[in-house]
């Protein structure tokens, strides 16, 4: 028996070609919709989008979700989506389902050949015209909305409980829909930061009892996320709001994470072009878990909108990890984030 065990252990499981096919099938490379299009990502990556409030972070998450739930093709029209399921964990509790529906309807409308510009101009002239409802619009819309799963957490213990029971939930939905979960969106991973920090470590009667301190909580969260990724490979995109303002009398020391040196280098470079006031406050264990980093800022410039009426402020997006030296500019319209050349 032992011989069989050892022989079985050293015999070949699969060839290189089969392995590559399997890995690329399970974790295909995908492109997120603009303005996050610069870097190809795969299931198993963890992207962190930092920014102050408000800076269109939730909108980017919504756009990624819309791109994921739309089918690639439906009734002869090409939509260019992935046709997979999306999980949205709302820690900020400010998700607006009307906005999701609006972005989705714009994408459907545009894919069917509708011209968004004409619609906006009509609206600007004083009409309060609703997006033209094309026949079967509601069927596709409800199909896409049903692929979007949402939960909100009002405290850390609810977030922990959600992650613990996520595996069963995912299995249930995958069996019910026959599609995979491609995307896990977490809105504002730093939502409970202050509450967790303020949780004092009580005198423990039992030596090996784990405490609900910031470190303890984050160890459990990252552990559960890693377990989830190993069983159900998916792309995790998390937004992170900054908690430190731009004041000089803040005496807090930022958490020293593994990537804080890189961030300090980036920071000195970016200071020349625009103000950079983000300090890393997440624990080291989360920083080590993140594989890609994006930063969003509001610039002082603005550009005239397509309907010529309002001036719209420009948002800046920069990739910190992998460090690209380009800054993408975009404006926020009714259809979502639109790149500005």
């Amino acid at each position, binding site marked *: 028996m032992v011989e069989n065990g050892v022989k079985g252990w050293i015999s070949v499981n699969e060839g290189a070609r089969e392995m590559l096919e399997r890995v690329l099938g399970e974790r295909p490379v995908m492109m997120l919709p603009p303005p996050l299009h610069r870097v190809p990502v795969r299931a198993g990556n963890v992207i962190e989008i930092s920014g102050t409030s408000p800076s269109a972070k939730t909108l980017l998450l919504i756009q990624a979700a819309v791109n994921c739930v739309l089918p690639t093709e439906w009734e002869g029209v090409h939509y260019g989506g992935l046709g997979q399921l999306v999980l949205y964990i709302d820690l900020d509790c400010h998700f607006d389902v009307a906005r999701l529906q609006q972005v989705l309807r714009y994408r459907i409308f545009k894919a069917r050949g509708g011209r968004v510009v004409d619609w906006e101009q009509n609206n600007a002239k004083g009409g309060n015209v609703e997006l033209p409802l094309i026949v079967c619009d509601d069927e596709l819309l409800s199909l896409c909305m049903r692929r979007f799963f949402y939960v909100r957490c009002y405290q850390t213990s609810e977030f922990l409980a959600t992650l613990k029971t996520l595996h069963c939930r995912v299995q249930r939905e995958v069996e019910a829909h026959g599609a995979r979960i491609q995307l896990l969106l977490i809105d504002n991973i730093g939502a409970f930061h202050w509450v967790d920090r*303020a949780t004092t470590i009580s005198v423990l009667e039992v030596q090996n009892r784990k405490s609900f301190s910031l470190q303890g909580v984050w160890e459990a969260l990252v552990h559960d996320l890693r377990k989830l990724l190993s069983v159900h490979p998916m792309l995790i995109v998390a937004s992170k709001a900054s908690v430190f303002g731009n004041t000089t009398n803040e005496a807090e020391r930022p958490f020293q994470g593994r990537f804080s040196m890189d961030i300090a280098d980036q920071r000195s470079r970016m200071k020349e072009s625009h103000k950079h006031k983000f300090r890393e406050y997440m624990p080291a264990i989360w920083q080590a878990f993140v594989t890609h980093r994006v930063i969003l800022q509001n610039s002082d410039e603005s550009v005239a909108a397509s309907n010529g009426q309002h001036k719209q402020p420009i948002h800046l997006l920069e990739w910190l990890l992998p460090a690209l030296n380009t800054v993408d500019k975009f404006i926020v319209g009714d259809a979502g984030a639109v790149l500005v050349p």
Partner: protein
Amino acid sequence: MPPLKSLGPGFPVIDSDFQSFCASLGILSVEDFLLHDLDALAAQADLRPSPERLKQGLALVFTIIESMHQPWRNGMEILEDVQKNKRILSTGCEGVDSLLKGGLHEGHVTELTGPSSSGKTQFCLMASAEVAYKHKGLVTYIDTGNSFSAKRIAHSIGQVDKKVLQTVMNRIICYSVYDIFTLLAVLHELEFRLKSQICERDGIARLLVIDSISSLITPILGSNGPQGRGLMTSTGWLLKKVADEYSTAVLVSNHTVSGNHGTTKPALGESWKVIPHTRLLLTQVGGSNCSISIIKHPSLENATSFSLLNHSQFCITYKV
């Protein structure tokens, strides 16, 4: 965090064996399970005598944990819930209503910031009058600075029959609150009452006004420690919970402080910014006029549209 044995005789599988197994791993209450890996615990249980019984206990704990978080919903369910239960309440001020494309949203926390005597209390009173009279809804008014005035509300309603006025005024309940702990107590009491009252959606409009929340939070934000901001965050999340679970429109007022380069910015700092869904800024523009603009909104682009309001009457002339 109550100890495991308080689960009591209702769960016979949580017996003293199970409790001692958990205690050996440092788990004394159900919440402690949240920090452990349940599969690793099951593996530990295999090393003990009678592992099946221990695993039954772990399965029971798993179902308890499943009930500890909010239920998952899909996009269509949320959309139907919003369309059926969450209305937009007009505020009685045309300028603000047109700016917000309807008014205050039930389920959202709206913040109104402005320097002192810019009309924040007047707006709060007007909105209360509007909800109580036009929408026949219930208003909970939390007053932190003794600025609640029943006379001004009656004036906003206008000339009506005495009995009608009485009914309308009975719909507004005012609490005088002077510190954050009393506020949390009032909010918890309100949540408890709403939970026991609402079996099904009853369609009553609800408004919760806190004038002003900054006077309660600013005293605790003073130190560099995380306790003050932790309390502020907990309060904010409680407001959001009350807003969403019980279809209440929440209106809070905030004051301004000086920012960089001589500008004014809303008080309460960076961590507060994520709490309201919608943020409005009132600025004086000479004389008795003030302008109101959007700083943050879930779907409208900010700071490009504003309304001009006449301070004393707080309505009419608006310009986009």
